[in-house]
């Protein structure tokens, strides 16, 4: 197994942070979005052994692509290190600049999601596949041609002569992705970051490309970072899997363990949500509500807490969650009841915060007692709603109804079985 400790480590990502400062253009300010910071990769640590396939799995915006780009040095790291070991030598990719960085890129290559966008429509396949050789090794003529032919044939574009003079528009989606793969292996890299390499392809083509990637891995001794939002291909393809949510790894472990024994509620939810082809296997599903929140304003505590069906008091409850709860309640009550309640509490703008305490004030037409009654009613509708466990005080004051929220626990990866999980619930066990 590739996880054997005597196999050398190829890539060691340590406490990596990649933050983007949002300047907030004139337009976005106009639309009410201020500048802020997106912690696209937020203290992530990963290790890949030589020949291993590590899956980065998560919904869009979880930071998978940014992490992949950081490994290639395509985005600067805000903090942490990315140690790449090749031929007995280690370098910290995050510290490389200029020429050293360009040289490093011959050893670590990336395959992108959209093969169509990754290829230049005005260049022949042979020119594009050979391009890295021209840039990095100054190859020309017969030698260049020979290497291009070999690369094309190794990805199944054979006989190569049939493809060399073609343009991307002459190729099918699967053939384009093969050409992209040929270009990525032509410099003999040892790590390949494959960013959703099959998700734009038809089902019947996906298996072919994955098979090709497996063949190449064995033939060339490659190490893969396989980025995907598709758990099914990750399960088949990866040795280990890291589940990401809003810039953090929430669960990481051997693939078998993650799928047989998913521990993080987010992992469990993802697995439950996959539509199953087998109609006999469909189970009633309690799916998490809501969607991935704004990355510039991540939730307090555990980022998944607003959606988590198993959340507890110390998961990070905050006023914003209360607002979401009221709005959800408003999708269920008759419209006149909504109108009455809305007249009493207004737009709830005061709840748009992650403060530990908040005061909901009545509008000019409403009273504190009416607000209190509304929240009491909402609570009675579903007393088991996890949010209430995180509310430590609800009190009528002369100015409004005051809420205090519980202090969030420290959320970090801790061992659980042969995986590591970042969840207070799991870690308390």
């Amino acid at each position: 197994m590739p996880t054997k400790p005597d196999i050398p480590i190829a890539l060691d990502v340590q406490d990596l942070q990649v933050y983007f400062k949002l300047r907030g253009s004139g337009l976005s300010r106009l639309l009410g979005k201020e500048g802020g910071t997106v912690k696209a990769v937020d203290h992530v640590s990963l290790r890949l052994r030589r020949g291993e396939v590590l899956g980065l799995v998560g919904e869009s915006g979880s930071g998978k692509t940014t992490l992949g780009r950081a490994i290639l040095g395509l985005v600067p790291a805000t903090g942490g290190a990315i140690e790449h070991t090749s031929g007995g030598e280690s370098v910290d990719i995050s510290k490389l600049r200029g020429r050293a960085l360009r040289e490093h890129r011959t050893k670590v290559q990336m395959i992108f999601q959209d093969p169509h966008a990754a290829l230049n429509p005005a260049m022949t396949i042979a020119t594009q596949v050979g391009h890295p050789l021209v840039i990095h090794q100054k190859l020309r003529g017969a030698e260049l041609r020979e290497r291009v032919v070999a690369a094309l044939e190794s990805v199944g574009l054979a006989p190569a002569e049939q493809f060399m003079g073609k343009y991307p528009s002459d190729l099918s989606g699967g053939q384009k992705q093969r050409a992209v793969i040929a270009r990525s292996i032509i410099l003999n890299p040892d790590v390949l970051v494959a960013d959703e390499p099959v998700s734009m392809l038809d089902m019947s083509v996906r298996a072919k490309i994955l098979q090709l990637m497996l063949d190449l891995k064995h033939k060339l001794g490659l190490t893969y970072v396989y980025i995907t939002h598709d758990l099914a291909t990750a399960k088949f393809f990866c040795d280990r899997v890291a589940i990401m949510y809003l810039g953090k790894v929430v669960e990481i472990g051997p693939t078998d363990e993650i799928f047989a024994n998913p521990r993080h509620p987010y992992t469990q939810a993802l697995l439950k949500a996959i539509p199953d082809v087998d109609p006999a296997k469909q189970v009633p599903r309690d799916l998490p509500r809501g969607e991935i929140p704004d990355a510039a304003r991540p939730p307090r505590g555990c980022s998944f807490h607003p959606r988590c069906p198993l959340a507890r008091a110390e998961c990070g409850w905050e006023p914003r969650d209360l607002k979401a709860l009221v709005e959800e309640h408003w999708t269920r009550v008759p419209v006149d009841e909504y109108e009455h309640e809305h007249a009493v509490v207004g737009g709830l703008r005061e709840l748009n915060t992650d403060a530990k305490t908040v005061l909901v004030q009545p509008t000019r037409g409403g009273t504190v007692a009416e607000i209190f009654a509304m929240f009491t009613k909402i609570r009675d509708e579903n007393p088991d709603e996890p949010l209430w466990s995180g509310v430590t005080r609800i009190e009528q004051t002369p100015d409004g109804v005051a809420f205090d929220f519980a202090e969030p626990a420290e959320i970090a990866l801790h061992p659980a079985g042969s995986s590591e999980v970042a969840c207070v619930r799991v870690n308390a066990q």
Partner: protein
Amino acid sequence: MSDPTIYAQHIRIWYGTPAGPVRAVDDVSFSIQNGEILGLVGESGSGKSTIGRGLLGLLPPGSVMDGELAFKGEDLLALDQKERFKRRGRDLAMIFQEPLTRLNPLMRVSEHFTETLRTHFPKISDAEVEKRSLDVLQVIGIPPSRWKAYPHEFSGGMRQRIMIALALVLRPAFVVADEPTTALDVLVEAQIIRILRDLAEQFDTALLLITHNLGIIAEACDRVAVMYAGKIVEIGDARDVFSDPQHPYTQELLRSTITLTTDGLHSIPGAPPDLIDPPSGCHFHPRCPKAMAHCAVAEPPVRNKRGGKPEPGTTDVACWINQLADVPEDARGPLERGEISVADEA
């Protein structure tokens, strides 16, 4: 039994192109009852969206459609353009894949609904617009407090919900949803699929759900039609088709789909054909592992899976294997053909 909401027989749709006519839909028949969800599945380019657009009269200029198409018993193809436009939205509606490109960023939710409702009911009052819209929005999980919000103030899933609500506010009897969840994350996709299923039931809508995702079909649909190269090769009860697929293409498609139980990769050799000049006989014969000599020369008619005439409620298949009695004995041997190389591959 009353007329089905949609009754489509021998529908053919061509696109005119400089290289010749593209036979995007080639003699396709099906019907959809009220409250029923028919899933339409197949690889890209098989003609799914063309069927959806054709049913709604949304084909681009230069395309031709013929066959028989009835909505609750009324011949739609006999209507003039103006009449068909009136039907669209009110009786027949479409939900698209990309909600953001379909919503006007400068218009509030309320304005979108006002525009939609006023197009069909010019005299409707503001209060009535609001009442009707909020009813649908609530069902779909959008709180009334967002009535005056702009599209950018919503998440992707919420915007798709708004699109669905906009399609449903006129209470159409028939809705086409073309890959409605393709741009969404799995958890949100699952929410939307559940909503569509609930809505078909609650509003008694007939729904044509177009997707390339077999899992979604299995979860959401009552019946499924499998398309290959412009033809429906198999149609029937979704459970029946998935548990006992008849057509070799359906079988291959199911086998090549990677699921949580996949432990080996399987793929269909070759690629879907060019629809300007599709293969003779059965369109699938060049890729079919079970093809017989006969398959390359004669087109298999649609029969129910026991070989008889298609009837309501049967699973119907277009494959010679299901009607071996009609295949001349000397043409039942395996089809001889050349190797399929990656060069011909998708």
